[in-house]
């Protein structure tokens, strides 16, 4: 049976200290990701201008668990819709409107549906922003081409077996150009 697992809700990690390498093509970054996974630098990440197909498998990240959020949020909205309309009309203040039955539930369907969709959508997006670490406009930009046409490989200091010189050479070995060692910003 398919149940939500915690690792599906992986979170974007801030990139304040580590090594960054730049790659030119999607194929290159895919290959690099594969290698890095095998090398075992846990918690490494790729920076992409557009979603490259298959990068998740390459990096070994599991499928996102956000649909679960959608599901339960939807359920919640649906429940609210049913209860709120039912209670207000037939319990809180029963009004004789056009002699219709107080629990004429079929009149409530449209709003039940709308509320379901509403809460499902909104909560999912909220969850997304949380997991993707958005919004944080103060975030540092590592390289300006990474949102346009080039691809980045990021290996954080926190990765297991991180030795700066090894990592740098490793990334170079993968064919990464402009390999830079990123230091945390000075707190002013």
């Amino acid at each position, binding site marked *: 049976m398919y149940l939500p697992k915690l690792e599906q809700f992986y979170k974007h990690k801030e990139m304040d200290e580590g090594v960054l390498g730049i790659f030119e093509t999607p194929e290159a970054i895919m290959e690099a990701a594969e290698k890095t996974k095998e090398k075992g630098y846990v918690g490494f990440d790729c920076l992409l201008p557009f979603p490259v197909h298959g990068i998740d498998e390459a990096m070994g990240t599991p499928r996102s668990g956000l649909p679960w959020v959608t599901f339960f949020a939807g359920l919640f909205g649906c429940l609210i819709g049913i209860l709120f309309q039912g209670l207000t009309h037939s319990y809180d203040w029963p*009004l*004789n*409107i*056009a*002699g*219709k*039955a107080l629990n004429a539930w079929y009149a409530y369907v449209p709003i039940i549906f709308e509320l379901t969709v509403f809460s499902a959508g909104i909560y999912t997006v909220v969850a997304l922003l949380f997991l993707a670490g958005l919004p944080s406009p103060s975030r540092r930009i590592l390289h300006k081409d990474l949102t346009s046409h080039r691809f980045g490989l990021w290996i954080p200091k926190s990765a297991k077996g991180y030795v700066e010189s090894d990592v740098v050479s490793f990334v170079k070995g993968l064919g990464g150009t402009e390999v830079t060692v990123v230091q945390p910003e000075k707190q002013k």
Partner: protein
Amino acid sequence: MMKDESFQKEKKSHWMSYELRGTHREKELQKQEFYTSPDPLIQKIKAGDFDRKTFLKFMGASVVMTSVGCVQKPAEKIVPYVNISSISNEGAPTEQYDFVKHGHSYHYASVCGGCSAGCGVLVKARDGRPLKLEGNPNHPISQGALCASGQASLFDLYDSDRAPEPMQIVQGKPKSSDWVVLDKDVREKIKSNAGKTVIVTKPLNSPTSKDLIAEFLKSIGGGKHLEVGFYGSESSIAKANEISFGKALVPNYHFDKARVILSIDCDFMGNFLSPVEFQRDFAKRRDLTQSNKAMNQFFAAETHPTMTGTSADQRIPLKPGDQRKFALVVARALSDLGVGGAQGVSGINLEAAIAELGISKDLVQKVAKSLADARGASLVVAGGASAETSDAIDLQIAVNMLNSMLGNDGKTIDPVNVRKEGKIDYSENLSQLSQDLKSQNVGVLFLYGVNVAYSDPLGEWGKLLHQAALVVTVSDRLDETAMVSNWLAPLSHSLEAWGDSEPVQGIVAIQQPTVRPLFATRSFEDSLISWAGGELAGSKNFYEILKSKYSKKTNWEDLLRKGVLGQANKSDKGGRSFRGNVAPLASTPSNLTVSLYASTALGDGERANNSQLQELPDPVSKVTWDNYVAISPQYSRSSGLKLNDVAKVTVGDKSLDLPVLVQPGLHPEAVGIALGYGRTAVGGIGNGVGQNAALLAQGKSPNSVYSGFSVKLESTGRKYKLATTQDHHMMSPGVLMGTAWKERPLIISAKLQDYSQNGKAGIPEPEIPKILINGKLERSKGANPPSDVPGSEFQYPGYKWGMAVDLTQCTGCGACVVACNIENNVPMVGRDEVRMGREMHWMRIDRYYIGDPEKPESLEIAHQPLMCQHCDNAPCETVCPVAATVHGSEGTNDMVYNRCVGTRYCSNNCPYKVRRFNWLEHWNEHDLLGGEHYTFKAQPPRNLGLNPEVTVRARGVMEKCNFCASRVAETKIKAKNEGRKIKDGEVLSACQETCPSGAIVFGNVNDPEAKVAKLLKDERSYKLLEYLNIGPAVSYLSRIRNNA
């Protein structure tokens, strides 16, 4: 027990009496925030400086306040009286009479000042303000009912265009003055021209006033008293009676005794002698719940489709000028049937004459037959402006002959207790006056209630009047005549003054005031007394005269309480023999002839400044706010004149430009134009509404011939959109745009014969979806049946309010509409808004033509009063997003104004379209966000007449008939406090209470003894659009016509 001077104003304002006007103390009071004495108010409005708050107070504008939820309400004040006084002593205005309870309504018996019929009324006054008029049940004339103009006459009291004080007119410019100066001037002039005083009054039905006038003339050393009336038939009838029977009089008519009625151009329910009485008597014989044997048969031969004609069993369209010919033709037909007593008809060639009339022969024979069968119980009447042809007197003689042939004298016609006695010749009086003026033979001239300059526009009164030494016009406003006279002596409204009336010999009613004069005005009688030097007949004011006079006859206070002295005489007496010579027939002009008629609402136009009457749709044409030239469909086709074309109407050398209305039911060669329009000096509302058709009148000046002369119509090429409340292209419900759809079962008519066989005659089975439940067809529960069907969701165990409307009795007079407007503070919106289709009447009367408009003889005109039907499954409630209209526990469809946001969805979804939307702020000078551009707003002191029991609605809010929720609530609280249930007939809806024909019945359906419950079970009862399964609470009783 009543009192005339209980004088506290609305809870939120000061009392104030007009004696204090202009005193130092008043100035002080004026400084106070909520000082609201009406007369300075007018000054303030006119002067344009007026603080908004006061206005809001006036208009009870908290609806507006609440629409801005976050605005703190302005502090309201409570201003109690200073003192309590007992009834015995004459209290000062600061004193509360110990019997007056704040917030309670009291009814005072009085007399209606609407017209000269002199109906007895009950005035509902609350905290010293008259708020509503109802008919006085004790009074044999009104018998508890009141007509449209009677209802509306309340607003003349609150008319902002009344003259607030005496005015002197110098070179056509009025300048304010006061009574002291006026009285002084009058007295001097009377002295200097002794014996040459002339008093011209409207036809008076007050014996005491007549005596007083005589007394006055005596005391000042002689003079004349002339009565002058317009558009009426009293003169002709009186003269004809003199010729026929040797005694000049206007008899009384008993329609309730008449089994067959033939009216020749007589709008006796709309505009003849005593409309309410006649309509009530007429309707008594149309009440089929009693027995259908009694039902009368009514033939209306008329030159113009009148309200009366619409309730005829057989309409006979006549060409103006042919009235007398028709009468004689009928006489001839009668004598052919062997009815004796005919004179001068032997020479008539029946076929030829009938052919000339353009009607079918068997129709005439049918009329004659029915009349002959009902000898002694039939009635022939003629009268009204449109019967005033050049041979009007001969017409009346012919009518007299018919009646005596049928032996109606002393039975349906009462020559003993008459309406008027002695020689009456209004036009003679008028010409006498102009002679005297020409020959400089008039000293002081008093004109009381006669607006000669308007009603006789060809008389050149502007010049003539200046031949008199002094002309004093006694009128409530600066009207056309006042503008060309020397003085205007402002007249009190009938609700402000004492008086009495004797419309029919032996029936006397006291007119008692219910409010202190709002302005510095006096009644004519009081003025006479002060002009006579402050004392007349040993009394200082008219009140004392009346009191002393009637105290001799009966207990004064009982008289006031009951309101009337004497009973109607219904016994048969006073048979008389016809001797008058019948003149030979003259030929009528061969081409188009016109008939000028007095419209049902406005009558002679005296009250043209009454928005209620201006906006009351004409019973037949449904036109408001204008008069028009009505032409027949045939003539429209031949001449090419269409609706809203402006035509040039030419009679001799005089001509008028009037919009055209194509009126089915007119004789092909007949043209009709309403009198009473085109006032020039009546006030902001009535000025310049329509054209004065009296300009076209014929005969020697003063004009007396209003009908039967030839007229020429030509198109001017211009267009003018008439403000109608109902479409005119649409004919009968059956034929729609030529596509022959099934006839819509809206008004269900049947013939008496069919009805007496089958009570449900003509009523179709409503197509309501039913399903087979254990063997028999029933409405399924899923189909949400209304409360009267088993298995419905909601039952109404306590009260269940319902209404029944009898279409057989309804005459479409519109009294209910006006009564509803006044009871519920319904605003009048003015011509432009009516054109846009935004009239606010909660109640409307739908008019349908049944039959072929090309065949006026066979055309029937049906009325259907339509108000909110209070459906059990009300479509409007389902769609209101904010639950502003929901169902009450008593089966009413409640509308909550203060919750309404104004989506108008309810109105769209209402199959009857009875909901009304407030497109405008009708009551407040400014509304929430301004909007002063709308000029047709109620001006003070109109607001003093608002019913405090009903919320005043703001802009952007939906409203509709609420089954007089305020009346129900009032009665219910009373009953509850007394620990009992409401009795049947204890609570009447405004429309029901005023209806002269008793067609509307409102009450508790759950009470099996209630009249409404019985009527709902009546075979004739059906519901409108029942197939929609909305379960209306209003039932209609099918329209039965007695035409064999």
